[in-house]
């Protein structure tokens, strides 16, 4: 112990101790001299003898100092100081290395943090690895099951040690105390056994049991998350038994869940759990209402194969019981084709993962390539630096420095570069995450952890360390492999004279760029293809929103909607106002079975078609071409029933009919010839209103003013030249007149909704493009470096050529040709890689082939242009060499 304190003391007081050592050694020599003088030597002899007896004074002192303090630490500190000095001396190199590394590490960290949350992070529950998600495929929507089906699955104790169900997480209004103000909270409807199956304990109070989820509407209970309890209730234990209002229901708080548990969806944070029986769905018990997602704990003794087979049987029996006698054969077929899939459940249930998981994986792979390219870039810069320092290194070797020491010093430098790159990269990652977040639609949830994630930080440090080793070790070994004698001779660049390694690295860089640029091209082209899909309507800047009405609202929806539209239509600057359900890119669907008299298609049995209720001027507002007439204010509940159909409807039911507006259809499907008439008054172009990739299907539009009262607030659509905020203000002014508690939901332009619907493609194209540009920049820097270095090496040769009559154009051509050679090698290596990558991402592309000529041809062209650009400066420099000067230098 005393030794360590002494060493610390030595570490801190190094300079003073140096002085003491000098004194001590000086005294020793002096005493020796005196001793020798006493024996009769002359002063000079005595001094020489003393020195001889003592041995090397400097050596002794050095050996002493080497032992003092913490020798390794001190030599490391010395290396760090030395490296810092060196880096400060060449700011261009330092900046290039740190920035390229920071971009690579930052991009990786940002993508990985998202990937980790969505794909890798285990639920914080006991034995998460036993969990499986039971996922319905086919039919209507995917993922969810009905309550009766869930009960059948949950009853299979021979397969599962418990099956929970969740209705998903939704943002709802929340009042923490009676009379308190309205806030928002994330609510999750869950089965009674939810917490038991997951093995979550309460912090205070109790959690739900099966008894708390028996009777529809009969369990007004709530469990709070630890975070909500702490942030909103100050962690007050008196919260138990208190009443809160959640989505307009009065609930009693019975407990608080363990800290760190936020529900089973990685991209959401549940604040309040409520028994599923408290749902507002009128048809919650119906076998046709798909709204629950099951998560099951598989019995350890049951192989997954058996679970899968058992679920297949269960599902088939279930579907046949319910749909077996359905008279609509198309619907029967669609229903019976549904299946239950077993999926990994340890990472939770995520809707976002469903469609964003694969793009995220692709991004992670691309970003790894970017980091590799960045590492190669830094390695190349280091090699160039090493070559420039050969003389210095040769000098130090000949002065007695060991190679190991020099390698250690070089590695210290790379360590500093990596550390700086990591620090800057973590900052960049924060920006990157914000950029990605701006692409995600609000309803996608929030997969970004607010607190720094330890595994993510670990990942970042690991990739930084791996990169440092990757780009640092080679150059360190290479640049210290110098023969001191040869290195000190003039010129002294014999080994670096053939920068073969650097050329190979540049070729690799070009190959990576080919992959990244080709991917950027594919995703960019794919996005363009999506953008150019004809949606059937022109006015994407139309503002869309819907009324958000309190559940206890007693007004008449149709009247309120009409009043709102009337007020808005009278506002100056607003051209037209309409409404529709379902609207544009707003989700929601509505269908009905019809007969079309005279159509063979419905002669035998009625057919299910999409329907929409629209107000007057709908097609004018959204800019859709129409033959015939739109609905107007005369189409009321008492006037004759009318409909507008789309072109697909005519193709399907009235093929070859020149005047569809003379025909009629019937929503009364009991008789082949139909019941009450609904006259077709117009034919509108096919409108893709649910998504760009939506398949065109027959649709019937009916007037908002006719038929049953609407059950959901429709999409209100406003065509205007006013800014969004002005329209919003007009809407907010009108809201109080419609009743207390009314609000606006899903506010924005239709263009924003379309963007949200293709956010994965937009993100892939944007980030892919960014990575592609980054890779090109790195490749350009690499090429430029190698070309100008090669130029400097060959200055003498070029001088001779020019003296012998070569023209400037020849010299330029020679250098450019050399650059093209490197790019050609990179292209030859890169294209097969890019082709393989393109095949892997094929399912993410829209409207183009995996081997897209535009993307691949463009990649080749871009790389050649970049290569020529990067080589142009060195080429011009080469061409302006003065032959006399170059030869004299030689």
């Amino acid at each position, binding site marked *: 112990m005393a*030794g360590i304190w002494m060493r610390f003391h030595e570490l801190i007081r190094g300079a003073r101790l140096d002085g003491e050592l000098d004194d001590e050694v000086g005294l020793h020599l002096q005493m020796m001299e005196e001793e020798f003088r006493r024996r009769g030597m002359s002063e000079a002899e005595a001094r020489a003898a003393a020195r001889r007896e003592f041995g090397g004074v400097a050596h002794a002192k050095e050996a002493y100092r080497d032992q003092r303090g913490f020798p390794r630490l001190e030599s490391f500190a010395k290396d760090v100081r030395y490296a810092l000095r060196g880096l400060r001396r060449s700011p261009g190199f330092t900046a290039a290395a740190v920035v390229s590394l920071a971009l690579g590490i930052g991009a990786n960290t940002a993508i990985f943090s998202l990937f980790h949350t969505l794909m890798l992070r285990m639920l914080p529950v006991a034995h998460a690895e036993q969990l499986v998600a039971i996922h319905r495929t086919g039919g209507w929507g995917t993922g969810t099951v009905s309550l009766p089906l869930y009960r059948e699955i949950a009853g299979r104790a021979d397969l599962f040690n418990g099956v929970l169900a969740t209705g998903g997480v939704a943002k709802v209004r929340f009042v923490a105390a009676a009379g308190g103000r309205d806030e928002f909270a994330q609510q999750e409807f869950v089965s009674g056994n939810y917490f038991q199956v997951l093995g979550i304990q309460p912090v205070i109070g109790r959690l739900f049991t099966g008894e708390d989820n028996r009777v529809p509407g009969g369990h007004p209970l709530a469990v709070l998350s630890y975070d909500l309890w702490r942030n909103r209730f100050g962690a007050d234990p008196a919260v138990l038994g208190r009443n809160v209002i959640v989505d307009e229901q009065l609930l009693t708080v019975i407990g608080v869940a363990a800290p760190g548990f936020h529900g089973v969806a990685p991209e959401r944070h549940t604040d309040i759990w409520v028994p599923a029986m408290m749902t507002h769905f009128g048809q919650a018990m119906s076998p046709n209402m798909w709204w629950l997602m099951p998560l099951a704990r598989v019995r350890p003794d049951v192989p997954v194969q058996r679970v899968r087979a058992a679920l297949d049987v269960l599902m088939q029996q279930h579907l046949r019981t319910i749909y077996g006698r359905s008279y609509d054969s198309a619907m029967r077929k669609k229903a019976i084709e549904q299946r239950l899939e077993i999926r990994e459940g340890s990472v939770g249930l995520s809707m976002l993962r469903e469609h964003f998981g694969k793009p995220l994986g692709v991004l992670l792979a691309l970003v790894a390539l970017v980091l590799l390219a960045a590492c190669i870039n830094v390695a190349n810069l280091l090699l160039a630096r090493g070559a420039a320092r050969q003389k210095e290194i040769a000098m130090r070797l000949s002065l007695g420095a060991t190679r190991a020491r020099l390698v250690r010093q070089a590695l210290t430098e790379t360590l500093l570069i990596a550390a700086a790159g990591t620090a800057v990269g973590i900052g960049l990652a924060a920006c990157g995450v914000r950029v990605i977040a701006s692409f995600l639609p609000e309803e996608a949830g929030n997969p970004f952890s607010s607190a720094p994630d330890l595994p993510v930080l670990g990942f970042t440090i690991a990739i930084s360390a791996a990169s440092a080793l990757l780009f640092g070790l080679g150059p360190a070994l290479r640049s210290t492999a110098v023969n001191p004698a040869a290195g000190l001779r003039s010129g002294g660049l014999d080994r670096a004279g053939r920068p073969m390694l650097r050329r190979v690295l540049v070729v690799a860089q070009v190959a990576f760029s080919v992959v990244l640029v080709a991917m950027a091209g594919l995703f960019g082209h794919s996005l363009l293809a999506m953008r150019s899909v004809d949606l059937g309507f022109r006015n994407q800047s139309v503002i869309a929103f819907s009324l958000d009405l309190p559940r206890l609202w007693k007004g008449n929806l149709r009247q309120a909607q009409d009043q709102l539209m009337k007020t808005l239509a009278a506002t100056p600057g607003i051209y037209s106002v309409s409404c529709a359900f379902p609207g544009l890119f707003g989700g929601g669907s509505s269908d009905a079975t019809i007969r079309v008299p005279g159509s063979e298609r419905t002669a035998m049995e009625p057919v299910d078609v999409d329907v929409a209720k629209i107000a007057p001027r709908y097609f004018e507002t959204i800019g859709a071409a129409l033959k015939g007439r739109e609905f107007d204010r005369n189409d009321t509940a008492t006037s004759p029933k009318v409909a507008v159909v789309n072109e697909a409807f005519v193709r399907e039911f009235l093929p070859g009919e020149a005047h569809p507006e003379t025909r009629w259809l019937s929503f009364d499907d009991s008789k082949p010839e139909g019941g009450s008439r609904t006259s077709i008054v117009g034919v509108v172009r096919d409108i893709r209103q649910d998504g760009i990739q939506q398949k065109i299907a027959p649709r019937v539009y009916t007037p908002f003013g006719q038929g049953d009262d609407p059950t959901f607030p429709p999409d209100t659509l406003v065509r205007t030249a006013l800014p969004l905020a002005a329209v919003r203000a007009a809407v907010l002014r009108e809201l109080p007149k419609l009743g207390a508690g009314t609000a606006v939901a899903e506010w924005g332009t239709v263009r924003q909704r379309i963007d949200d619907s293709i956010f994965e493609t937009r993100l892939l194209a944007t980030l892919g493009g960014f990575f592609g540009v980054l890779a090109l920049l790195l490749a350009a820097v690499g090429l430029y470096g190698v070309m100008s270095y090669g130029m400097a090496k060959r200055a003498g040769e070029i001088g001779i050529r020019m003296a012998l009559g070569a023209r400037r154009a020849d010299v330029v051509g020679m250098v450019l040709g050399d650059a093209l050679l490197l790019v050609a090698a990179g292209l030859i290596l890169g294209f097969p890689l890019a082709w393989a990558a393109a095949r892997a991402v094929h399912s993410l592309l829209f409207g183009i082939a995996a081997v897209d000529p535009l993307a691949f041809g463009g990649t080749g062209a871009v790389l050649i242009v970049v290569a020529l650009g990067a080589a142009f400066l060195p080429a011009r420099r080469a061409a302006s060499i003065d032959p006399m000067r170059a030869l004299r230098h030689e």
Partner: protein
Amino acid sequence: MSTREAKTDILQGTLDLMVLRTLATMGAQHGFGLAQRIQQISGGMLDLNQGTLYPALLRLEHRGWIRSRWGVSGNNRRAKFYEITAAGRRQVERESEDWARTVAIMDRFERLTEME
């Protein structure tokens, strides 16, 4: 030069024992004094670079076997004096035993050669 050939290089690790033993019997010494004593005791048979003494002293101090302090030498000069600690004395005992054992073993081998 001829005397030099008769001198023996210090065996690895034996310098520590020499220093400790000298300090244990002679009391506190400064560096030069210690070097003189070692040379005297060895009868001038050792080829000791006196400079190597200082790293050795630091090493022993790190281990807590000796300690140092600045004092005044015989002719009124400031010098650093080294003295053995209690731990150092224990170490001397241990090493002396080891050394005796090693010598005894080597001795047996030497005699074996004589017998042949």
